[in-house]
């Protein structure tokens, strides 16, 4: 078993393009299939372009990451038990601290700590509808925690391009 340090992010746009394109066309009557494509970025490992079959080519505009660091490779810390914990990093957001902790045992939720919101658990809290714009790069670099990825309804490459996830992928 060879060891191949590979620390990188692979970006793929184009899969399920049909779904996104249809939805957009149907509900907003906007443009049809625009450019989609794929960029594969990585360091210290293989780097082969992925092309999206049946799409129209192009690129999402991500650049290759050259972090050059492979700090994530190496030692295995014997984490072989079936219990995994989602540990809540209490993160200061513009709307207050948010925290959650969940433990999965063999894929089943076995323990959950209540989500902490700016108010006590269970209460609704109003967020600022006009959040201060945060430069993606700054948000990634300055965030108290390391944001590894972003969950959001991101269906189009246009939206992706301006998203935090895009910035994270660029950091490679």
């Amino acid at each position, binding site marked *: 078993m060879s060891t191949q340090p590979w620390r990188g992010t692979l970006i793929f746009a184009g899969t399920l393009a049909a779904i996104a394109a249809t939805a957009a066309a149907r509900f907003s009557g906007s443009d049809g299939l625009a450019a989609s494509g794929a960029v594969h970025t990585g360091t210290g490992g293989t780097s082969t372009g992925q092309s999206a079959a049946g799409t129209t080519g192009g690129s999402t505009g991500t650049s290759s990451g050259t972090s050059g660091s492979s700090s994530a490779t190496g030692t295995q810390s014997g984490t072989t038990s079936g219990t995994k914990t989602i540990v809540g*990093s209490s993160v200061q957001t513009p709307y207050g601290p948010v925290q959650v902790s969940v433990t999965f045992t063999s894929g089943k939720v076995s323990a959950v700590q209540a989500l902490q919101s700016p108010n006590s658990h269970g209460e609704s809290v109003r967020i600022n509808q006009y959040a201060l714009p945060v430069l993606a790069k700054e948000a990634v670099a300055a965030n108290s925690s390391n944001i590894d*990825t972003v969950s959001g309804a991101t269906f189009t490459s246009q939206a992706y391009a301006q998203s935090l*996830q895009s910035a994270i992928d660029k950091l490679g």
Partner: protein
Amino acid sequence: MGLPMSVDVRRAEGPDVQAALDAAFAVLHQADERFSTYRPDSELRRLERGEVPEDDLSADMREVLDLAARAHEESGGVFDVCTPEGRLDTNGVVKGWAAQRAADVLVAAGLRDFCLNAGGDVVTRGEPEPGRAWDVAVRHPDDPQAVLAVLSVTDGAVATSGTYERGAHVWDGRSGSRQLPLVAATVVAADLTVADVLATTVLAMGEDGPAWAVEHGAATVIAVTTDRRVITAAPAAVSGEPAARA
């Protein structure tokens, strides 16, 4: 346009990472071809036109329709693959289902530490670095670059459905309405197939959605109403103290 998908692989040992990624993407391509709502020759479109006899349905189509049927039943009809316009639309199931299968391919190939993000739906395995969980930010519904919350996840899934990007792509199967009381719903679960269906359902269900989702497999739910209130829900603690984070 396209669904952006990224895979962040850490500490890959042994397996051929590229081959594993290729196989994972192939899963998504296949799902796209089969369940596309716009390709006239997709199995979904052929099924909609009544051109596919019951016995000829693919195993994948059966699986997806079964998932949808179960979600329809469990949600009291809120989740529905039949659109108000009378079309067949499995998008509420397929994205999470396909991305979870792609992640399963990576696991089967031996990858232990990775984070897969398909259009904002996330599967995490292992750790980005020893001793740290993957930190998954939840996008603010009004600002693509602002963070609403950060969830730390080792082996799990986070799905978000929102009206902020694709518009009214989700509907309430009970009323057929596309006017929804929530603008976004995020669900954490052990599996992305579950998380995605729950997130879609919560979005359509409204303020009762988060509590409902917790009863149906959600580990955590974060929902934002149209007037920008945040509603959260999580199961009551089952056992002792959660692991502390340094």
